[in-house]
């Protein structure tokens, strides 16, 4: 992928759990079946309460989101171990989530699947950035620029090459940790 990404952002608050990212009723979809993977994307973030989030993340009837960057508060992705959560976001077209902090299993699933980059922010961005703002994420400088203001992010470190490769299996093959596919 290119080293910068410019996109409108979608902003959520603290403690967005996996039920809000992909409600349990859609877990019947199996992510490794291509058409079900696409469908998971259409339901990304559909569990957010309508009164707090009047703007839909994925437009009604659509499969993809216009927001390739999600900004969130503390503890993003808490709750279930369902890998459907980062996959739903990735399938919808999200490339990065910038949050105050992440829940452990969600973070790990982002890296394992290579679906999206989980960036830790250095300051609370979800209070100063609004849904629809245009942001530029620089993956080399580890910064997010919105309305001419540049915010530094915590570097992704050793997880970046894994996500760049497309997940742990590709990474492990590229680096010779496991055998190449027959």
């Amino acid at each position, binding site marked *: 992928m290119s080293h910068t990404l410019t996109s409108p952002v979608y902003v959520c608050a603290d403690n967005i759990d996996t*039920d809000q990212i992909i*409600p349990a009723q859609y877990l019947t979809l*199996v992510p490794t079946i291509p058409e079900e993977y696409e469908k998971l994307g259409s339901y990304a973030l559909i569990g957010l309460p309508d009164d707090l989030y009047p703007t839909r993340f994925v437009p009604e009837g659509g499969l993809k989101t216009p927001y390739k960057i999600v900004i969130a508060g*503390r*503890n993003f992705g808490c709750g279930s171990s369902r890998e459907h959560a980062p996959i739903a976001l990735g399938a919808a077209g999200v490339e990065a989530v910038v949050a105050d902090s992440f*829940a452990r*299993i969600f973070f790990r699933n982002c890296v394992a699947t290579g679906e999206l980059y989980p960036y830790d922010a250095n300051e609370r961005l979800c209070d100063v950035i609004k849904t629809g703002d245009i942001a530029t994420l620089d993956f080399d400088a580890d910064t997010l620029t919105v309305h001419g203001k540049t915010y530094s992010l915590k570097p992704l470190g050793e997880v970046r090459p894994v996500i760049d490769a497309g997940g742990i299996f590709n990474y492990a093959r590229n680096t010779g940790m*496991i055998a190449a596919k*027959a």
Partner: protein
Amino acid sequence: MTLTEKILARASGKTRVAAGDNVWVNVDVLMTHDVCGPGTIGVFKREFGKAAKVWDPKRVVIIPDHYIFTADSMSNRNVDILREFVKEQGLPYFYDVIDDPDGHWQFDVSKGQTQKQYGSKYTGVCHTTLPWKGHTRPGEILFGTDSHTCMAGAFNQFATGIGNTDAGFILGTGKLLIKVPESMRFFMEGAMQPGVMAKDVILHVIGDIGFDGATYRAMQWEGPGVYGMNMDDRMTIANMAIEAGGKNAMFPCDQKTIDYVNERTAENGTKSEFEPVELDGDQKFIYDKVFDLSKLEPTVACHPDPGQRKLAKEMSNVSLDRAYIGSCTGGKTSDFLAFAQVVKGKTVKIDTFGVPATTKVVQELKDTQWDGQSVWSILESAGVRMTENASCAACLGGPVDTFGRLNTPMKCISATNRNFPGRMGNKESQVFLASPYTVAASALTGKVTDPREFIS
């Protein structure tokens, strides 16, 4: 080293590990279920090839339990995907809902939601099945594609939840690269007072540290208060480590642990050797706090997350629409017995649903007689809608026809473990987490109620 460090050191072939180290561990047991199993199998086949074999059939346990008793055709299909894989791989530990290994599962709507619809192998909720069927052993490493896999920390083992991709990797290799977590110690003194249950202990602690207070960490439980608890109590506490963001829960091993495990491995013919890890003098904790169990009171976690702690007695102004008892955390036999003790001879005031965690719980509630009446019948006489179809059911919402699911906005008090918006179905609903005692007392009054009003 802490107990978690000792297990991870052993599993990675090292004499010592420290928090922050990344280590490859050998996996003793991998568990998956109907929601994440099909995706895990998909990853396994995609990455290791269509003809690939799992690393060790005896170490794979497959437990359909989430979306079983539903007419949703995708859910029924997902159970069939598991059965097909089990057959192809020759896996010995599969607790199928039907007996025919060549059959297809289809829920029969005409029989209704409450009447038994499973064969002789079906068990119910995975985390409660694992110990019952002899798959939990001290000193071992268990991974499961479910966040509440941490429940097995009650048995002095390292147990944690993972995603499909990691599980697919384990299926092919039997190994996983993990980071050694920092450990927090929760030291329990004293004993719980009447009306207080293990659920109150964990809700109190999560309220104390915050519901992300243990993120990336091991929660190690110690002290005389812990040894006073039975295995069910320890399971309830370990189960909810994830509700504080914890990677795993860890209990020391004592005679109760050993007796429990020995009895079940013998009964099921599963691997019987194990080596517990013992407490060291030189443990390093990032957090260390003493709790006096005798000071705890019935506790509730309010909407919208498990860290919103209040005392039940402060909440008598909160009216409820529904009460629910069930799940890995709150659907064990001991949970239902506590519930029945409160509602016996009385009538619930609000819609109340009971879903046993396992088929064994169903049997035990039918077999246990109080004054010539079975506990099952005592619960039904009190107006509790009991189902014989043990499963995860409405704890996590599920398909819309799931028994007990919150299909409209309502306030529900529940013996389950998680209450984020939409967890039990409708996303405008509010869920209050509490002990089986508190859920029972609240079902009787229609308001959040301190159960000590009903317990002498």
